[in-house]
């Protein structure tokens, strides 16, 4: 083992030696790289030494004397890890900065090297004053590197940085020397033995020391100087500060917390939480890339501060949580800064320049999802553990603050990502890939995945299915250059394989969703054959979404469930954002999803209080706050379900998606919400929150959702939006059915779920085909298409008859069941509204089919073709199933009823053949279908007899008030089809909820704008902030002076 002191000797030796080289910059740089590499190697070797077998950390005595008489360094597991991180960032950062360093000359190389050295020693030293010295080295070095490219931005930023850190380190020094005075030693371990806190004045000294360390970590709001540096400095330097320097700082804080007592720990955790919340809130108003990253870094470090402060509560878990989050921050932030350097776009919107560039977007997406804490990245597991522990310690306020903070972070990060993927008002120009900048970034991205896997292992997450899926996704991503039909076949094959492998592993309710997810997936994927070319990036995402969906079924523990949930969200987000104008819709989708996910997460957290395991069955007996947990989770799942109030993301997201994505997200993805609710209701049953039956409230939410969804659908001009709203409505029914918690209610609900899957994919596919051909989504621009697209017409016809729930088709079954269930349950008013809503669905059904297929054909659409073959195939498969189910309703309802018997034994239907007998009524689907068909044929025969030789006439050959209309536009009654209805009831669908959410968002932005005005750019104000922070924290901690 090489003595760690040689990290110092080598670094300094090289730094001093560079003076000899004169003008040979290249050589100098080479030497610097070697030095950094050696330092890296040393810390790596020590890590491998300490790995696994836990050995005591070794001490290095400088001056050859034992502490406290001389300064000693320590190298243990923790030190080795942190120095490794620092040196890695150092080496890669130096490689990234190669050109800049060459341009700047050897002085800057020296400074860079010394910076890395300083960070190393900060981690290793055990002497307080020595720590001060090397922190000074660090800050001076950074102050130097800030002006690596001196310009109007970086120089003032650097100056502010110098004066601020000058003040802070003076405070540190003051504290340090007085610690020496009161404690008689400077060695950290010895100081911690002295009970200085109880010496008068000693406590002040310790306060100053710890506080100045905290200040070095840029707490909100005393961090304006840091933000300026992040914005002004070269991104490469920003990466170094954010990754390496902050890492070291965190370690130092952790090291020095031995001085403090509970008051200090609490103070740290609160400061951290405020920082996290505050800086993320301010971030949402920020439009400059680097400053945004600055806000985010500050926030992340704040989060880690909180975790350190929570050490007394978290105990053993602290290491895991802190490390998971720190590593994610380290990788992602460095990566993003580096990307920012490569793309070199100041404003967030300018990132639209890289839209469509697979590699850049892949990297960016990786890092951003790492930051927000999506699976499979370490932060996901870290956040999970954190939430669980916070809940266990009943720290609900902190929990809320942290989740809200991360939500804000999500807001600006996803907005940014959206711009990069979609913003098309800047012309595309791909920065050409410089290897020295590119390779480090890629390495970090890869590390993010690898570490994610590792942390998954640590936190006991093992789902072979997900790993297989991940492998398959990766495969698809790599072989993305293959033509569509190959990839499509692969995808379908994989799904089919999975189906046949597992068709009897799922029992009970999950089997229903299993069928919907897998079979549904296959059917909708068939439509993919329509597309030509490569369809870059589509299949990995689809598979990601389906992997998530199936993962929900496979999940045995809450962790696995949540993992799958987030995976599905991520996949669907990317699927949705592929659509043409779907940038902001995708944003609102992901934000609502993230918000909902956090509610679910906290629900899980509360649910598992007092449990050891994390199995899904913890929901079955929740020890504390069961109603709250229940409500949180219910709302969380309802965001996915787009229940009224949480629905505003859905129409845009589903309407703007591609032709075959809409059916997936609408007909299949939404069922995830239902699945969640089913799971929740079954395990936690009815709950009373403040004496109110939550389910009763939800039943109202359900019917109102149905009403509003249908009514809004009736007023749409855009065909796909119409369908989207109708999804909202139908799922409102489903929710209502579930809330009844009775056999019939669930039977109704589930049958609606199944049929909704069928008719909604049917309709979305059909309309998608039409839109493909007509190139418009507005119904009033179509008309008379029945002649060009008869097959699509039939699909839509069947589809709407099922939606409307008209006998004889199977939709009626749902209605009939619902009626019986309600009678049984006694929720008459909900029933009234439910059926009112049901009839309103006639409005949009007719509008859909009439304005598109009937009426007057438009001139420009006279010769559109029938929808593509592969779009029709899945439609007709579905139609066949629908007709069979209509003829033999019990083939669907009986099995579901059987399953439900396990949960709701009484109140089941009685079947005589196809005759279903409920508590109130009876219904014989087969017979009805037969009768209606016979009558229909009879009448048709009669009409045909009396009316054989009816002669086909041309368009416009109609009685038109003795006129002959000449323009279809004026003759086709389509626009604002239900004007009188709108006049009568339009007020019901005034966009109140949308306005509400807009107001919320505007409010948040306004607040952020107000608060951030404290960063007035004046260095002196920042000094004042630092002083003020000190004073206020002191007062709050000691309740006075």
């Amino acid at each position: 083992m090489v003595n760690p002191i040689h990290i110092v000797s080598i670094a300094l030796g090289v730094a001093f030696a560079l003076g000899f080289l004169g003008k040979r910059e290249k050589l100098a740089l080479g030497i610097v790289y070697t030095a950094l590499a050696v330092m890296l190697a040393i810390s790596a070797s020590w890590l491998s030494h300490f790995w696994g077998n836990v050995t005591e950390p070794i001490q290095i005595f400088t001056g050859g004397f034992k502490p406290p008489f001389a300064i000693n360094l320590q190298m243990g597991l923790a030190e080795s890890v942190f120095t490794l991180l620092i040196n890695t960032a150092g080496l890669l950062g130096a490689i990234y900065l190669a050109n800049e360093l060459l341009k700047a000359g050897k002085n800057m190389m020296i400074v860079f090297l010394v910076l890395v050295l300083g960070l190393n020693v900060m981690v290793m030293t055990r002497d307080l004053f020595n720590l001060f010295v090397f922190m000074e080295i660090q800050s001076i070095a950074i102050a130097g590197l800030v002006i690596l490219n001196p310009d109007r931005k970086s120089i003032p930023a650097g100056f502010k940085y110098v004066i601020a850190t000058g003040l802070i380190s003076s405070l540190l020094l003051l504290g340090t020397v007085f610690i020496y005075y009161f404690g008689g030693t400077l060695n950290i371990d010895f100081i911690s033995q002295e009970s200085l806190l109880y010496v008068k004045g000693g406590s002040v000294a310790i306060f100053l020391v710890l506080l100045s360390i905290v200040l070095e970590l840029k707490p909100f709001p005393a961090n304006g100087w840091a933000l300026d540096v992040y914005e002004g400095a070269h991104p490469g330097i920003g990466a170094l500060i954010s990754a390496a320097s902050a890492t070291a700082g965190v370690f130092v804080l952790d090291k020095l917390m031995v001085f403090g007592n509970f008051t200090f720990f609490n103070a740290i955790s609160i400061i951290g939480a405020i920082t996290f919340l505050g800086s993320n809130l301010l971030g949402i108003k920020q439009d400059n890339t680097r400053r945004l990253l600055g806000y985010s870094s500050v926030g992340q470090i704040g989060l880690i501060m909180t975790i350190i402060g929570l050490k007394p509560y978290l105990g053993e878990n602290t290491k895991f949580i802190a490390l998971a989050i720190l590593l994610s921050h380290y990788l992602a932030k460095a990566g993003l800064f580096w990307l920012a350097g490569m793309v070199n776009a100041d404003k967030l919107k300018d990132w639209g320049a890289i839209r469509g560039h697979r590699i850049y977007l892949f990297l960016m997406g990786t890092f951003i999802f790492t930051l927000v804490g999506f699976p499979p990245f370490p932060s996901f597991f870290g956040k999970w553990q954190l939430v669980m522990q916070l809940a266990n310690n009943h720290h609900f306020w902190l929990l809320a603050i942290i989740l809200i903070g991360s939500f804000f972070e999500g807001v600006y990060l996803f907005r940014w990502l959206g711009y990069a993927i979609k913003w098309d008002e800047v012309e595309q120009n791909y920065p050409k890939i410089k290897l020295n900048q590119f390779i480090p970034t890629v390495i970090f991205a890869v590390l993010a995945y690898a570490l994610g896997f590792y942390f998954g292992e640590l936190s006991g997450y093992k789902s072979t299915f997900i790993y297989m899926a991940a492998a398959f996704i990766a495969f698809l991503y790599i072989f993305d250059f293959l033509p569509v039909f190959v990839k499509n076949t692969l995808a379908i094959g994989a799904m089919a394989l999975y189906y046949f492998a597992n068709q009897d592993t799922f029992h009970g309710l999950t089997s229903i969703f299993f069928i919907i997810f897998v079979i549904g997936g296959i059917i909708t994927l068939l439509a993919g054959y329509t597309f030509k070319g490569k369809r870059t990036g589509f299949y990995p995402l689809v598979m990601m979404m389906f992997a998530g969906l199936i993962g929900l079924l496979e999940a045995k523990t809450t962790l696995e469930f949540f993992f799958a949930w987030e995976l599905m969200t991520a996949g669907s987000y990317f699927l949705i954002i592929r659509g043409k104008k779907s940038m902001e819709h995708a944003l609102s989708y992901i934000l609502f999803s993230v918000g909902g996910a956090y509610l679910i997460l906290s629900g899980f957290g509360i649910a598992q209080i007092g449990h050891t395991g994390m199995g899904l069955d913890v929901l079955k007996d929740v020890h504390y706050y069961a109603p709250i947990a229940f409500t949180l989770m219910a709302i969380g799942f309802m965001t996915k379900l787009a229940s009224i109030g949480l629905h505003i993301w859905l129409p845009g997201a589903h309407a703007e998606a591609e032709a075959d994505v809409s059916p997936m997200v609408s007909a299949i993805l939404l069922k995830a919400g239902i699945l969640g609710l089913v799971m929740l209701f079954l395990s936690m049953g009815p709950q009373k929150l403040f004496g109110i039956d939550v389910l009763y409230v939800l039943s109202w939410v359900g019917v109102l959702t149905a009403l509003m969804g249908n009514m809004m659908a009736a007023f749409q001009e855009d065909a796909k939006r119409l369908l989207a709203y109708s999804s909202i409505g139908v799922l409102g029914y489903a929710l209502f059915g579930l809330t009844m918690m009775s056999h019939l209610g669930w039977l109704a609900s589930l049958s609606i779920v199944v049929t909704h899957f069928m008719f909604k994919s049917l309709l979305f596919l059909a309309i998608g085909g039409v839109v493909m051909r007509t190139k418009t989504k507005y119904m009033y621009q179509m008309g008379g298409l029945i002649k060009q697209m008869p097959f699509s017409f039939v699909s839509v016809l069947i589809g709407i008859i099922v939606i409307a729930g008209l006998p004889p088709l199977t939709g009626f079954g749902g209605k009939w069941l619902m009626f019986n269930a309600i009678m049984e349950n006694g929720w008459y008013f909900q029933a009234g509204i439910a059926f009112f809503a049901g009839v309103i669905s006639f409005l949009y059904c007719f509008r859909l089919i009439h304005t598109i297929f009937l009426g007057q054909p438009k001139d420009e659409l006279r010769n559109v073709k029938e929808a593509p073959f592969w779009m029709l195939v899945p439609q007709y498969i579905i139609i066949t199933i629908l007709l069979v189910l209509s003829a033999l309703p019990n083939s669907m309802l009986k099995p579901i009823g059987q399953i439900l018997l396990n949960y709701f034994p009484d109140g089941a239907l009685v079947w005589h053949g196809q005759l279903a007998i409920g508590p109130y009524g009876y219904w014989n689907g087969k017979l009805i279908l037969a009768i209606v068909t016979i009558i229909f044929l009879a009448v048709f025969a009669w009409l045909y007899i009396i009316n054989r030789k009816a002669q086909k006439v041309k368009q416009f050959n109609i009685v038109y008030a003795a006129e002959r209309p000449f323009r279809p536009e004026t003759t086709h009654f389509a626009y604002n089809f239900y004007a009188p209805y709108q006049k009568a009831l339009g007020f019901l669908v005034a966009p109140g909820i949308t306005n509400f959410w807009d107001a919320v968002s505007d409010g948040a932005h306004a607040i952020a704008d107000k608060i951030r005005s404290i960063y007035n750019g004046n260095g002196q104000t920042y000094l004042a902030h630092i002083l003020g922070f000190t004073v206020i924290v002191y007062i709050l901690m000691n309740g006075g002076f």
Partner: protein
Amino acid sequence: MEFGIKQILYLLLTLFIVLNYGLILQGIMPKIAARVGRRYGIRWYQPYLDLIKNHAKRSKITHGVMYYLGPVFRLTGGIGLLLFLPVIYGSPVFGNLSFAGDLTLVLFFQFFGVLGMALGAGESGHPHSAIGVSRGLSQVTALELPLTLGVISIAMQYHTLNISDIVAAQQGGVMNWTIVTNPFAGAALMLTFLGSMGRAPFDVVMAPQEIPIGPPTEYHSGFLGVLQLNRAIFPVAKLILFMNLLYGGATSWPELFIKTFFIYLWSVFVGVAFPRFRVDQSVRWFLGVPLLFGIIAILLI
């Protein structure tokens, strides 16, 4: 129950009776209305003449498949509705096909014809047809809310959705009729009934007086004939439904004729007494007083 040639004959018989009764009503009611307006009015057998005329028309044109099928849907809806009802209480002969489904089926099956017809009208490409459909659907949806509440109230009153049982429960004198035992539900239903009959003040859908408007605008000759058949059968079916729900059904044809006649008369009475609503007005109206009755009906169960 076994289903043989006999039943089919019974069905046809029912159809035949109802058809003629419907045609006659069609003749009489306008006459009554005209007399109220101090006009002479049509002859009572005018509908027969029209029917024959329309079937005899020689010029026949079609706008396409849906256009052709529209009337078929419509008539199917009418006949189906009739046949799913127990026409004569207690008579196995005229119980028809009510064993196939209950009240829910009947309520929803009304719309089968409506929607099919609307599609046919739509394909005719005549704007007036589409406007008519839009108006019609708007009104129907509006009156559905009080209707549902009323029906639920009744179903709860008798704890069944089976029409025959509902009728059975009302036997034995006027005092057992639902209209007496559950007046608010009755009121709600009778008010929505007005809307469903499409007479004033709710006749803007068809608007018979003005230039031809409404779904049938483009229909003529045989098509119109079929539609007329439906116009004869469908209202009677609805009358029978309301009779069964509110007025204790009928144990014999004469009783049926009398009861249904007066129920029909109620709509005519209102029609001659009140001017026409615009659609938005009628929508608001249905969600006013009738809805109130419906809610009270529910609350009083």
